[in-house]
């Protein structure tokens, strides 16, 4: 699965997610990706999320909307992501990751799986990582 979230110069927010699904899945199986609130959500008033991971688990906890709910309650993008990913792991045993932005342009890339390839661009800096805790930067 791949995805992106963005805030533009006018403060508008958007998300996009795309996937080939689960390896050797049943024909006709649909996961979280095309479901609003699960495979992504964007609201100029709160932020945007694009997730990846075990689709059935993501759907059971409506992961994207859950993260934005925590942000509405005052949590940062990073805190909200960690809370929701931990809940998904505890409640339904699901692993995954998310990229998140808020209307101020604060962002997060968080995951409970071993790896997630991610990259971010802001203020002329490129940020990227793959393993937990990795955060490299270089000029764009």
């Amino acid at each position: 699965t791949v995805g992106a979230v963005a805030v533009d110069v006018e403060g508008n927010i958007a998300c996009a997610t795309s996937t080939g699904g689960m390896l050797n899945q049943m024909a006709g199986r649909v996961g979280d990706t095309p479901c609003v609130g699960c495979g992504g959500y964007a609201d100029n008033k709160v932020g945007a999320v694009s997730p990846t991971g075990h689709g059935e688990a993501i759907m059971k906890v409506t992961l994207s909307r859950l993260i934005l709910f925590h942000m509405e309650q005052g949590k940062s993008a990073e805190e909200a992501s960690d809370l929701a990913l931990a809940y998904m792991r505890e409640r339904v045993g699901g692993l995954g990751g998310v990229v998140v932005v808020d209307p101020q342009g604060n962002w997060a890339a968080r995951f409970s799986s071993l790896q997630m390839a991610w990259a971010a661009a802001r203020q002329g800096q490129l940020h990227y990582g793959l393993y937990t805790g990795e955060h490299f930067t270089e000029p764009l």
Partner: protein
Amino acid sequence: MLPVLVVHGGAGHIPKERAELSCGGVMEAVRGGYSILRAGGSAMDAVVEAVTLLEDNPAYNAGRGSVLNVKGEVEMDALVMDGRTLGSGAVSAVRRVKNPVQLARLVMEKTNHLCLTAEGASQFARAMGMEEVPEESLITDYARMRWRKNLAPGANPVECQMGKMG
């Protein structure tokens, strides 16, 4: 407002030999999308461009490089959402489309619906003038190898794809 773009290339188990490919692809995608934002483009244009680049990159499970279902076929899903209007468009189980994210955007912009599925989504793609591509063009040798490996009795495709706890 300072623009920002964040992308991901999927969670789970990424073999060591594919780690560099995975990192390189998300960096290229974020550069492509961010150049749109820097030129004053919209957040929607930027996320669709970034995801299109990732769909075209065979290193990722989307578009070209998608995993195969149990029948050895490619079925893809995609979603876009606009935070200004809460407008959204999606496609599910769509086949023979090069860039499902662009089709999802057309669902949002050209229909009153949120999601089109399977053959209906393919028909809509044709009606919108999107080129139908051969299924073979979406399938990589790597995807076929993983599909074969997980046809074996006792294989665990979810474990194979998602890996262990972080």
